[in-house]
């Protein structure tokens, strides 16, 4: 086993542990709980009233949130290589990254000033 695989062994172990825990929790629930099926139990809970049926259509405005998330997600992607090379990139890299983040922040400020973030 080479160094390469040894490094990722921990990742594999973590994934395995996650799967095991997930299975154990659901499995334990299945073993412990009583099994009394009733048709009412399969109805979606909607604040006491009967559900309209099916999936509701969500509002377009949620999409802006998703997009804001994507924006900062992509920012993170660019920050990784910068963080790894922080020393050798030096002050110059810091300025570059600062400009990048400031411009991105404008997007957030825009969304904020336009009242998109408020859910009144």
């Amino acid at each position: 086993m080479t160094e390469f695989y040894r490094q990722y062994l921990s990742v594999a172990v973590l994934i395995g542990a996650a799967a095991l825990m997930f299975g154990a929790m659901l499995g334990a629930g299945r073993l412990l709980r009583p099994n009394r099926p009733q048709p009412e139990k399969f109805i979606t809970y909607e604040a006491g009233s009967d559900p309209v049926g099916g999936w509701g259509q969500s509002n377009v405005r949620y999409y802006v949130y998703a997009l804001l998330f994507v924006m900062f997600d992509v920012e993170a992607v660019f920050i990784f290589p910068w963080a790894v090379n922080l020393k050798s990139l030096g002050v110059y890299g810091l300025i570059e990254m600062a400009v990048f983040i400031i411009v991105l922040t404008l997007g957030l400020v825009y969304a904020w000033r336009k009242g998109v973030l408020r859910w009144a």
Partner: protein
Amino acid sequence: MTVVLFFIFGALTIGGALGVVLARNPVHSALFLVLTLVSVAVLFLLQDAQLVAAVQIIVYAGAIVVLFLFVIMLLGVDQTEPFAEPLRFQRPVALALGAILLAEVLLLAGHRWATGAKTARGVGITGGAFGSNIQRVARVLFTTFLWPFEITAVLLVIAVIGAVVLARRSAQTPDSESESAPRSGS
């Protein structure tokens, strides 16, 4: 070991891709897509392309699939598309083109690297002696491609502005449309 992992994750990639196409529920398709994308990320890792693997998981498996799910929710999950093909000849043509593509890929695979480029692990594309993959990417990203990199920030802001402009209802009053609750499915 590499070969074993390659086949395991190659199979998962293809399985996930089939799931995307075959699943009836669009949400399931999106989840199968996650499987495919994560498997591809592992394939990238096997090529020693750590940054691309990380990007694959963070951006694609994370962000892009989230966007897909949002769009699916926006359209409503139970609106099943009719499977009748509007253009009859489409399916055989698609099959034929797919077969040609497969033949092409197999042919090129026989020539090892189609483009003659080497893997990042071997004598690297930019010359191997500069340390790890991420460091090499950082070096070019923050020197040679500094300007495209900064423009990317502007582009991301534009994406948000575009989404806000298109998603909001009216121009003048930011408060008037706030009452609109999520509409229930029709």
